[in-house]
């Protein structure tokens, strides 16, 4: 039985299952709702022509021509070529055929596509007189297909979607995606000014003169880990610029969350997280992936956050009149606008989090991980049921929309039978995997070459963690408070706040939260924790309650991240102060692999993931503990040892004693060094 909140969701596949002919539905008359209705509907080609005609592009062509002596006509041709690479198209016949195909696939692989219809209709009502930006989470390639399919179903113009170049080069698929509204963006930030200026102007054009909603992923890329990613600001800034420079009266951002029972790419992601290269998108690869059609992927949920109006978000704070002098295309962001853009990006992710749906399997994964962390090998079904129940209560208390209110873990397990099995003794355990390492081209490894044994044993854990991660935002903040209190026993509020802010800063690239340094959010969190009797407070300060189960659960799900950061800091301490950026991650992995092998206590294999390792380096950079430095052609991390020692000590106290470095033989063999 699903919870009350989810009961109001509508399964859009239901009508497709029951109707006489999907084809009739696909070919119905369409009069889709535009984001910004124009008296004369702009064509995709019109946008490209306008970009080429724009003052900005004409001036750039003029300048390059003067500087290089190249003919203007030739440069204009270059721009046109770029525009043809970027620009979306719209072919209704393709959309209908694809819609037909997707209906058939969707009916096959999904039990249901459940949509918060009430919210969607409300958003649709708000559309029509301003640019609208759809910002879904990105957990799977299925995301933008789901979004477009949803728009098709609800008679909303299929958005112009920012897509990566890997799709562009796919045979047939590239052009099919383009015809359904995708436009393409190069990823590498090289010095091709002509390209980037053209791209920016294209965004400016479709925002100020376009009629379609725009769609992109504020996280910038698919989250391989299932965790919410720290948002990227590039495209968001481009989209906001016309608002700051008053080219448009308002702009509406719609945070959207798509939660999957089971992600199509789960195995692939697990590999990628460990550094096994991602296969290039190819059409044959796509057809291979059609094998997914034989399996069931359960439900997927689409929910919408409250639309964020640019006018309201920035109103009263940003003075757009600051851009009144000098031409619009020469305007730059003010420092305030830059920092508020970052704030908006965070706000969007926070709102995506708020409308995420926590599936039953997410909770099962949490329970199992917790169980493994406590050193157990398997788990009795009835214990699992019990754990799932109180974890569910905890999540609901912290505002989560969870799938279940009466425990039904069977259906959750069914979809994931390749990962979790119930043995004849009614014990739940991970299914053993056998990885054929030989088939992996070791030259393409991004990380350390993990041994066959390691791979076999860790892969199921990593895959399981993919289902823990979507719920982490309900855990990370509470866990920080808990580990602080576990160490300090009794702590006054100011001190607690300082420690909490320290951890938030340390994990700022790991867990998206808008409340770093915010006192009110901190108070709220303490109140919430007190409400579930996790913590207590009296005149002497804050201390933990006796309820050990939940505290351990929070700690256990947090420790892998803390441990990875700690290990990295220690490795850096043992270095000579200059660490080659290229090999750093692999060295960390190799060290953790060793630790897993020698330590008696449980070290979660997820610690090996490159994602967390990269986040740690980003955080250390933001905290100015390490600094990027170029020597010849190589990039090095220059380490500030004094501060690092300080940091290590601060982290160490929060780890279990047996995870601390002094318990381990000092191992000089994994010394991180520039000479290596």
């Amino acid at each position, binding site marked *: 039985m699903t919870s009350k909140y989810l009961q109001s969701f509508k399964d859009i596949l239901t009508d497709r299952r029951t109707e006489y002919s999907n084809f009739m539905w696909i070919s119905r008359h369409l009069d889709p709702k535009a984001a910004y209705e124009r008296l004369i509907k702009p064509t995709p080609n019109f946008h490209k022509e306008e970009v080429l005609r724009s003052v900005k592009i004409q001036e750039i062509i003029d300048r390059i021509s003067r500087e290089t002596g190249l003919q203007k006509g030739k440069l204009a041709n270059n721009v046109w070529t770029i525009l043809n690479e970027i620009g979306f198209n719209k072919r209704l016949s393709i959309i209908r055929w694809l819609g037909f195909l997707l209906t058939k696939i969707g009916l096959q692989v999904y039990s249901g596509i459940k949509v918060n219809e009430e919210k969607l209709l409300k958003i649709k009502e708000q559309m029509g007189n301003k640019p609208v930006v759809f910002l879904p989470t990105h957990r799977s390639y299925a995301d933008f297909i789901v979004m477009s399919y949803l728009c098709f179903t609800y008679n909303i113009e299929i958005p112009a979607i920012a897509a990566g170049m890997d799709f562009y080069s796919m045979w047939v698929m590239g052009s099919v995606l383009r015809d359904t509204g995708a436009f393409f963006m190069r990823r590498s930030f090289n010095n091709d000014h002509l390209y980037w200026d053209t791209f920016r102007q294209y965004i400016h054009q479709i925002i*100020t003169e376009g009629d379609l909603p725009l769609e992109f992923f504020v996280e910038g890329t698919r989250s391989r880990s299932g965790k919410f990613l720290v948002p990227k600001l590039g495209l968001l800034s481009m989209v906001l610029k016309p608002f700051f420079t*008053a*080219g*448009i009266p308002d702009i509406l951002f719609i945070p959207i969350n798509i939660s999957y029972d089971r992600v199509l790419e789960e195995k692939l992601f697990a590999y990628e997280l460990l550094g096994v290269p991602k296969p290039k998108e190819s059409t044959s690869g796509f057809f291979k992936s059609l094998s997914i059609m034989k399996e069931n992927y359960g439900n997927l949920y689409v929910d919408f956050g409250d639309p964020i109006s640019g006018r309201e978000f920035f109103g009263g704070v940003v003075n757009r009149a600051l851009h*009144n002098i000098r031409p619009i295309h020469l305007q730059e962001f003010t420092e305030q606008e830059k920092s508020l853009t970052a704030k908006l990006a965070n706000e969007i992710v926070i709102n995506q989090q708020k409308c995420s749906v926590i599936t039953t399997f997410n909770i099962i994964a949490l329970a199992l991980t917790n169980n493994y962390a406590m050193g157990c090998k398997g788990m009795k079904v009835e214990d699992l049921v019990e754990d799932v129940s109180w974890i569910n209560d905890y999540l609901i208390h912290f505002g989560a929309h969870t799938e279940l209110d009466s425990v039904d873990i069977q259906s959750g397990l069914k979809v994931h039978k390749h990962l979790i099995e119930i043995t004849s003794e009614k014990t739940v355990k991970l299914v053993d995997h056998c990885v054929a390492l030989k088939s992996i081209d070791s030259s393409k490894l991004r990380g350390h070459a993990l041994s066959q044994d390691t791979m076999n044993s860790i892969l199921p854990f990593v895959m399981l963690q993919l289902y823990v991660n979507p719920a982490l935002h309900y855990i990370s903040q509470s866990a920080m408070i808990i580990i602080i209190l576990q160490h300090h026993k009794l702590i006054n509020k100011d001190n607690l706040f300082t420690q909490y802010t320290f951890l938030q800063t340390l994990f700022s690239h790991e867990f998206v939260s808008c409340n770093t340094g915010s006192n009110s959010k901190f108070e709220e969190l303490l109140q919430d924790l007190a409400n579930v009797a996790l913590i207590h407070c009296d005149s002497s300060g804050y201390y933990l309650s006796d309820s050990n189960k939940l505290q351990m659960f929070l700690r256990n799900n947090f420790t892998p991240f803390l441990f990875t950061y700690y290990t990295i800091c220690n490795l850096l301490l043992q270095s000579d102060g200059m660490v080659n950026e290229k090999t750093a991650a692999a060295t960390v992995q190799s060290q953790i692999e060793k630790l897993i092998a020698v330590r008696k206590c449980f070290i979660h294999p997820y610690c090996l993931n490159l994602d967390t390792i990269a986040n740690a380096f980003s955080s250390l950079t933001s905290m100015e503990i390490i600094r990027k430095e170029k020597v010849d052609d190589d990039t090095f991390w220059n380490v500030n040892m004094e501060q690092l020692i300080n940091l290590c000590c601060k982290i160490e106290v929060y780890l279990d004693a047996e995870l601390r470095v002094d318990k381990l033989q000092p191992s000089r063999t994994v010394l991180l060094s520039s000479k290596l």
Partner: protein
Amino acid sequence: MNSNGIVNKYSNTPVSKSSDAIFVKTTIPRKREELLKWNGWGYKDSRFLVKDGIIHFSGSRYPIGELSLPYFTQWVEDVLGVDLSKPHTSKDQPVEEECPYPLISNDNYKQIVHLNVPFSTKGIDRLMRAHGHTVYDIYTLKESFFDRIPDVVLWPSCHGDVVKIVDAADKNNMVVIPFGGGTSVTGAVECPKDEMRTIISLDTSQMNKILWVDRENLVICCESGIIGQDLERELHTMGFTVGHEPDSYEFSSLGGWVATRASGMKKNTYGNIEDLLVHVKMVTPKGVLEKNCQVPRMSCGPDFNHIVLGSEGCLGVITEVILKIRPLPKMKKYGSVVFPDFESGVRCMREVAKQRCQPASIRLMDNAQFKFGQSLRPVPGYFGLIFDGLKKLYIKKIKGFNFDSICVMTLLFEGDVKDVQMQEKKIYEIGSKFGGIPAGQTNGERGYMLTFVIAYIRDLGLEFNVLAESFETSVPWDRAVSLCRNVKYVVGEECKKLNIEHYLMAARVTQTYDAGCVIYFYFGYNYSNIKNPVEVYEQIEEKARDEIIESGGSISHHHGVGKIRRKWYPGTISAIGVQLFKATKQELDPRNVFACGNILKSKL
């Protein structure tokens, strides 16, 4: 302070012989209410009224006079949701007893008598000079009463009278608010309600002589109280024109034009008031500000003409102005071009400005205003109807124009026959480059007729719960279209929030310059379900102005700051600018005689 002999209290130019002066017969009598509405716009005999459910326009002063307007009737019902069967009656003209007693001490009264200048303390005289024509002013007249009105009205008849009045006010702690044509739309002539000193309304209407005409240099010297139509009428008989025609020129005065930095419809040919002005005298409590020569231009430090222009009654009284004149044009011709949409129209206007080939006037109405203008045509004859239909068919079917996006550019050409022909050719050529098609003289003429008639519509609206007002701005070319869009959006969203169902939001480009243009917005709404219509209107206009400024527009192009736009003044001119203005005020008017509180709220 002023007795040290350095500052001259009196003008040092010789007084003109009165025999050279032309005593102009003024259109508007001293008892303004005899000719003009006491509580609305314009002539008493000219107004929209409803007869048998159809709107008519009365009187014969305007081309639509005595005509039945069925299309307009329909338009008003459709767009503004008006129920013409339920008119609302407003207050009657107040009798003497209803007006507040004037605040004048016996000493001050003696001083005023002593001036030997005609004056009045009658309620109606004071009420008629207590307001301009903001929506607040008119609504207050029709529904309630002002908190504060002038205590006495004085009618000086020459520069010397003004010097005497200002001197007496300065010495006796009285306030002077200059009053010209009373057409201000910024609250400029309103009395600050907490002003407890005696307020003198200095009515310049009797200072309306043309003091002399200089045919060699093509300039005239006029007293500041002359109103536009009188000035033009007199000059026409001599074969000249000033060519300054703001939409209010039937009633507004020369002094008012200077004090607000006015702009006329035909500024392309004749220039704005600052271009027309050669010399000006302003009487301040410290003396008379003027220059020593009548030259076309000079380089002598910052130009203090620009202290006078736009001073809005805060610094002194403008008494005499030397203006440029031009020989009357031989020919006057209207024209119009329709465009598929507003954006094409703006691009065309921009190109015309780039080529600097603007005719005397060139304006662009947006779709809402185009439709409104179309609705003001009288019942056509049988043939007219067919012809009308055919034109519509041609525009829609043959040219593929959408009736809901179409907009029209109206043109006024002036000059020699040949000049006009050349101008027309050029404009229509440029027009066609942007998809425009000539749409005849009638559409153009109707556009300009609308200019004068549109002001009368508000009074009709107020009879049927419709409040309407216009506001304007200037903007660089590249931001003109987005500014219009943004402002319309903001007004639309505000109306949505306030549950305003029926409203009109229209825009037009009314002037073009090298570097930008002027946008005029018309906003009217049905306030049947609103308790405080004026406040709500003001709230919407404030939001609109905020958006105008954020969209790259100005605080005002020609209406001025007055009291209603003081909020945006410091932001417009910087903190140093505010200090500079305050210092100027402090120097010229240390005792705050000119306490109208325009531009910046004056300290009391």
